[in-house]
């Protein structure tokens, strides 16, 4: 059943052309696409296919230095904190196929950050109780607060938050103190509330979460 990495990369190149994100999408390696676009200079995108993207998945592209973004194809996956930090140091952007499409519209692809992460990180930086924050992985942040113990949260962006979302977040991303449902139109199902209560992890939307940061 498994496709080769080269076939996966070809499929991504086809999507970029079909969606008119790229004027040309040329495979220059089994995991590398040169993306030409209407407004800006071409760039290289690296494609990976992993349920858990770790340093060893991205190190070859960091060493080569020519890719500006690394896109992971599976959506049911996680980027580890170590891999994210390594890419941020370069800088190189990261994400999935949709991120690759969005980043293609930016002149500087390397500094692209998914809008939901940018929104939350800006909010944390502007909060007067927040001293700093770390990232455990793609979706779990640890917030260090002035004169209060750290608070970790998992960022979930769904229209309908279900019990399975919370259980899967715990399995996939590890421990967290709270859930932040970051979709402004998102709703919390009774099943999600029940699972969250059993796990003792309260669920907040953005405004409530900012308030939670004020409490020990």
């Amino acid at each position, binding site marked *: *059943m498994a496709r080769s990495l080269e076939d996966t990369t070809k499929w991504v190149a086809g999507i970029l052309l079909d969606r008119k994100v790229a004027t040309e999408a040329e495979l220059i390696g089994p995991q590398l696409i040169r993306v030409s676009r209407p407004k800006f200079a071409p760039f290289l995108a690296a494609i990976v296919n992993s349920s858990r993207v770790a340093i060893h998945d991205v190190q070859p592209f960091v060493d080569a230095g020519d890719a500006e973004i690394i896109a992971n194809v599976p*959506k*049911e996956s996680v980027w580890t904190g170590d891999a994210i930090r390594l890419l941020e140091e370069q800088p190189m952007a990261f994400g999935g196929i949709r991120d690759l499409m969005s980043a293609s519209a930016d002149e500087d692809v390397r500094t692209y950050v998914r809008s939901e992460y940018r929104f939350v990180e800006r909010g944390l930086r502007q909060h007067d109780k927040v001293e700093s924050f770390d990232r455990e992985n793609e979706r779990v942040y640890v917030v260090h607060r002035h004169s209060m113990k750290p608070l970790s949260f998992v960022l979930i962006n769904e229209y*309908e938050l*279900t019990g*399975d979302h919370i*259980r899967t977040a715990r399995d996939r991303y590890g421990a967290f103190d709270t859930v932040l449902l970051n979709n402004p139109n998102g709703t919390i199902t*009774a099943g*999600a509330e029940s699972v969250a209560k059993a796990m003792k992890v309260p669920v907040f939307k953005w405004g409530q979460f900012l308030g939670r940061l004020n409490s020990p």
Partner: protein
Amino acid sequence: MSPNYVIDLIRSEAERIATAIGKDFIWYIFGSFSREPKIAADIDLLIICHSHRQTQELRTALSGLCLELPIHLLLMTTEEAIETQFVSSQKCYEIFPTLRASILDKAP
């Protein structure tokens, strides 16, 4: 990766899981793949089952498929599906056990 290939692959997994775990699940496609399957960047897949325990079994059983295809997996209990009216509000297409022909009409 043609839409027909994607649907066939998902349905064959659904058959396998029905045999291995049980036949209680209803599988739907929604989102961009149901509207424009040829150019969709990912595949929104909803599976409705009876209990949270079943959702955990399904996640494990679907790990291979989720590595093969860019699937965004939404697992809901029957209660959650009724509460949210998700199938009607998101215009979900059933693909298993019944395959609604309209999803394939959009394929080339």
